[in-house]
């Protein structure tokens, strides 16, 4: 590799870093606005037009904030942990294409690489928890380890289903294979497994038990502040964006589905825009889920991962193998996959372990209560009731 090549790659990497960071800033704003909308609030409104500069203000605040180093902390690990979380989040972008030919390096084993790199962020979270020497943080770090490795298996298996359909580990090739039919229509079950386990990998609600504020008060991040914390934040949103892009590339047909008739420069630009539009739809879905569902308990979370998603992902692979081996038309796989998806949702909704005992609160009027318990009516000052 010559020096000029190194510089070209470095330039690409810097551009990628800048654009991904820009997207992350937008995402933080979008998430606050989306959650505010769901919770009937206004969200940020003060800084800039409708609060659009809020992320910039946040970034400035975080970097000029005091960075507290607890006395008991294991200093080396404490300092390195944010970097260990950030590196895998960015490294995944080496091989993620945004349009035909627009990719830093199209690795032949792209999907294997992404899977291998994505697991590494567990290490950073455990380091953060352990280095803080705080009991909440240690608990949060261990929960992160338990959760992330449990959901890694269905996550990879869902990707494997796509690999079998596309017969390639190359992301560009996977997208090209979806020219006519996106894999979401062939494997709805696979999409369900992928999205659910990806949410758990991201540690977003309803799977955010490792930094659950009401249980472990922020988990591994409890002692962090200022610049250190902002790196965790950056990595988390970067991961969210990566997962959304991967969902689009693997299941929703990337840039090619349904049609992309142009070629040349126009094709590239439109492809990227189309991909980003689809990605933002997935991101809204993730925000929507966060605004809607309550957090799972840790035993529910583990049971859901190991007893529900793992067998479903095995089933997904075996079904795909049978259909592909006997050259059965793909719509049969769609039907099978759909049936099992409906069955799975039914089991999740109605199984004994997932349904909680709900305390029902019945609202009754004061009048009714009075007549029931026999409290004499209040003096209403002579006015008729």
């Amino acid at each position, binding site marked *: 590799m010559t020096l000029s090549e190194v510089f070209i790659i470095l330039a690409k990497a810097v551009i990628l870093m800048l654009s991904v960071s820009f997207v992350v800033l937008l995402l933080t704003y979008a998430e606050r606005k989306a959650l505010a909308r769901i919770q009937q609030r206004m969200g940020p409104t003060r800084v800039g037009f409708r609060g659009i500069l809020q992320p910039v203000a946040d970034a400035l605040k975080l970097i000029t904030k005091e960075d507290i180093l607890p*006395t008991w902390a294991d200093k080396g690990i404490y300092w390195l942990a944010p970097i260990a979380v950030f590196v895998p989040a960015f490294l995944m972008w080496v091989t993620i294409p945004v349009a035909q030919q627009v990719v*830093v390096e199209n690795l032949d084993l792209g999907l294997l690489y992404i899977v291998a790199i994505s697991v590494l962020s567990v290490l950073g979270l455990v380091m953060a928890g352990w280095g803080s020497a705080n009991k909440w943080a240690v608990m949060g770090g261990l929960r992160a380890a338990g959760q992330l490795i449990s959901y890694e298996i269905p996550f990879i298996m869902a990707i494997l289903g796509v690999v079998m359909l596309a*017969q390639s580990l190359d992301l560009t090739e996977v997208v090209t294979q979806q020219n006519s039919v996106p894999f979401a229509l062939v494997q709805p079950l696979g999409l369900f497994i992928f999205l659910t386990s990806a949410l758990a990998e991201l540690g977003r609600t309803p799977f955010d038990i490792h930094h659950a504020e009401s249980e472990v008060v922020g988990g591994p991040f409890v002692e962090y502040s200022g610049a250190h914390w902002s790196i965790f934040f950056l990595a988390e949103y970067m991961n969210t964006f990566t997962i959304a892009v991967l969902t689009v590339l693997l299941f929703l047909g990337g840039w090619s589905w349904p049609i992309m008739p142009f070629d040349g420069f126009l094709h590239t630009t439109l492809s990227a825009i189309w991909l980003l539009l689809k990605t933002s739809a997935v991101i809204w879905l993730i925000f929507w889920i966060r605004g809607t569902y309550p957090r799972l308990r840790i035993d529910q979370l583990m049971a859901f991962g190991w007893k529900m998603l793992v067998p479903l992902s095995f089933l997904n692979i075996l079904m795909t193998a049978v259909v592909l081996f006997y050259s059965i038309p793909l719509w049969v796989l769609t039907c099978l996959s759909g049936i099992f998806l409906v069955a799975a949702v039914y089991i999740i909704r109605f199984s004994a372990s997932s349904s909680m005992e709900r305390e029902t609160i019945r609202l009754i009027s004061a009048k009714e209560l009075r007549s029931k318990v026999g409290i004499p009516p209040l003096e209403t000052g002579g006015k008729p009731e």
Partner: protein
Amino acid sequence: MLDEYFRQYGVIAIFAALAVAVPAGMLIISWLLSVLKIRPNNPSTVKNSIYECGFETITERWSNFNFRYYSIALLFVIFDVEVVFLFPWAASFGTMSVQFGAYVFIEMAIFIGILILGWLYAWKKGSLEWS
């Protein structure tokens, strides 16, 4: 071919260098700002103490943790290794099934079957239970 192979490692290495440099740069900027007295830096004993529920932390800093994490980790290792074996099989399933016929399919079905047996055993033994 081999050159191409090493070139890809080079690309990833450059990316890794940048991925380390950016957060490290942020930390250094933050530190410089404290040197230049732009951001506050007034550590005190109370401020630097461990965050707790209002008490001082008692016993060891690093407490013991539950054994269940080990069994989950062991299960993960088994399944993860299995997935590594599944990757090449899945990627070349089409060409291999033309070449070797039903053999490809049945063999992997047996492999997955053994794992499912193990998984059922783990379930039966209660390693998947959290409570």
